[in-house]
């Protein structure tokens, strides 16, 4: 079996151009790898993938992603290809339409290999809330791969596919990328259309690319970005080439490190790893300041209020009447809906929907939800102030590295703590990436978090690719 899919997109593209391989062979490689894999990173395989790859024969290779196999997180709507959100509720749901990002990747002739496993309805940070069983980490099967884009991250880290799409509401692209030692970007809110992304929290969700290197990530962002008339929150901002600043001199960049991000909550080895990078950059002449940023510590309650409030509303459509799972029994409509939802949804989802309903209910709405929206503005003001003086904010992506499966099962709060450092970015709508910067003493990957100003993904990639090139550590 070939191992072309462990190469970068750039390298695979060259093989295709040089006719050393064809899309059909790439797809075959991916499918074989999946068969031999115990990771459970896919929920549905695209039965037409081979056929689609074959149909590319003879076509002009018109773009860098032509013929490249891609894995899609299973909360993104794919026409005629089952989309489950890793939930019993949508176990047999087959969409009638493609998400806008899917239309875009099909236009570029990428081949969808399948739909990847995730936490149910993107609610979780370990992959363990999936109805289809949890995804294993390719680095160590006893550890969590992270979540909620578990399958996407695992598939890329395991070289099954070179690229995957994930979604990020509070860290669901960045955290698993960090745990798996790969690259994951959450774009600026509005950069990528949400049409077809099964909503968790409307004001926080974004679809983003997961890859093994920074350049591939930028290539993917190029094709999935852009204004979409069907999504009124999508931005009219021009899509330029996100690779354009890669390789450019970083000396002029001004970087801020919030003290909270290097504080007591962070594991020592993780901190040291980040400090090494800071030293590396300072040696290059980059200005790096430690700063105080207020309100970062409110990340979790903000998320629990706003994300769960919105989620309780977004998941209200799952009533078993129009589509999805429904209880067999003939009951009065109220009991029918309650029974359907109680069986169709897992515990984490149910818990979150109840919290969400609570914070929006009656007098609570002002006390919690509206207040949270004001606090959100304060936090965003905080970020904006920093970006007046600095180009980027950096720190660790997570407080620690990947941990054992089963650790967070019954702790209702713990499932949120993984996202402590990543949530503020979603709250403000800023773009951010996680890149691997080294390993801890147990050889587990450590991820660095780089936050950019609105629509400045190119600057993020500029710094990220520099670090990638120059950190000197062994690659995963």
């Amino acid at each position, binding site marked *: 079996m070939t191992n072309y899919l462990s190469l970068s997109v750039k390298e695979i593209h060259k093989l295709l151009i040089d006719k050393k391989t064809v899309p059909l062979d790439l797809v075959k490689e991916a499918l074989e790898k999946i068969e031999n894999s115990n990771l459970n990173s896919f929920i549905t395989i695209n039965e037409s993938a081979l056929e689609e790859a074959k149909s590319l024969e003879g076509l002009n290779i018109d773009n860098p992603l032509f013929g490249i196999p891609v894995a899609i997180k299973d909360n993104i709507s794919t026409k005629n290809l089952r989309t489950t959100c890793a939930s019993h509720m949508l176990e047999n749901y087959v969409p009638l339409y493609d998400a806008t990002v899917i239309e875009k990747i099909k236009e570029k002739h990428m081949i969808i290999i399948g739909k990847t496993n995730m936490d149910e309805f993107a609610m979780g940070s370990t992959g363990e809330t999936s109805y289809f069983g949890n995804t294993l980490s390719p680095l160590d099967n006893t550890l969590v791969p992270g979540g909620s884009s578990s399958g996407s991250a695992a598939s890329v880290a395991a070289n099954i596919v070179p690229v995957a799409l994930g979604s990020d509401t509070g860290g669901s692209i960045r955290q698993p990328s960090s745990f798996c030692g790969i690259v994951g970007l959450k774009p600026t809110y*509005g950069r990528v259309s949400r049409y077809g992304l099964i909503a968790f929290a409307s004001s926080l969700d974004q679809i983003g690319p997961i890859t093994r290197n920074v350049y591939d990530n930028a290539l993917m962002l190029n094709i999935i970005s852009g204004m979409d008339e069907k999504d009124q929150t999508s931005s009219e901002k021009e899509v330029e080439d996100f690779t354009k600043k890669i390789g450019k001199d970083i000396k002029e960049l001004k970087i801020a490190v919030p003290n909270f991000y290097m504080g007591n909550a962070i594991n020592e080895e993780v901190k040291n790893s980040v400090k090494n990078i800071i030293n590396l950059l300072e040696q290059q002449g980059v200005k790096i300041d430690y700063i105080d940023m207020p309100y970062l510590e409110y990340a979790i309650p903000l998320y629990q209020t706003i994300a769960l409030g919105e989620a309780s509303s977004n998941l*209200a459509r799952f009533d078993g*009447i129009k589509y999805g799972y429904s209880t067999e029994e003939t009951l009065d409509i109220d009991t029918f809906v309650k029974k359907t939802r109680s069986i169709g949804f897992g515990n984490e989802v149910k818990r979150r929907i109840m919290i969400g309903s609570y914070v929006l209910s009656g007098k609570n709405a002002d006390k919690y939800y509206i207040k949270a929206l004001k606090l959100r503005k304060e936090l965003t003001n905080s970020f904006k102030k920093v970006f007046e003086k600095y180009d980027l904010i950096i720190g660790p992506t997570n407080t620690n590295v990947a941990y054992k499966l089963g650790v967070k099962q019954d702790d209702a709060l713990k499932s949120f703590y993984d996202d402590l450092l990543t949530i503020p970015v979603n709250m403000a709508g800023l773009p951010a990436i996680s890149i691997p910067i080294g390993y801890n003493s147990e050889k587990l990957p450590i991820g660095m978090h780089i936050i950019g100003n609105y629509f400045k993904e190119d600057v993020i990639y500029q710094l990220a690719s520099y670090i990638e090139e120059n950190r000197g550590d062994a690659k995963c």
Partner: protein
Amino acid sequence: MEMLNKNDVYHVANLAKLALDEEDAEKYHGQLNDILTEIEKIETVDIKEQDIMISSSNNTNRFSNGSTTHISKDEVLARASRTNGDFIVVSSVFND
């Protein structure tokens, strides 16, 4: 300090249209209270900002392009739980 009592749990489950039995209610009672204790921090934090931020998108005056999308009746009914060939059918509760 307990945020929710047992009745509140049932009330919130009803809002969320979830069925809870005694055991579930017991289990969720503790878990929800843990989370709500965390959320209390929102109420107690002192801030100056009076404006709300719905999202970072400040898009204004976006209007749809007027083109239509359409799904056939068969496709709609094929996905529904219960139909009679023309309508989607559910059991009634109210008679209005």
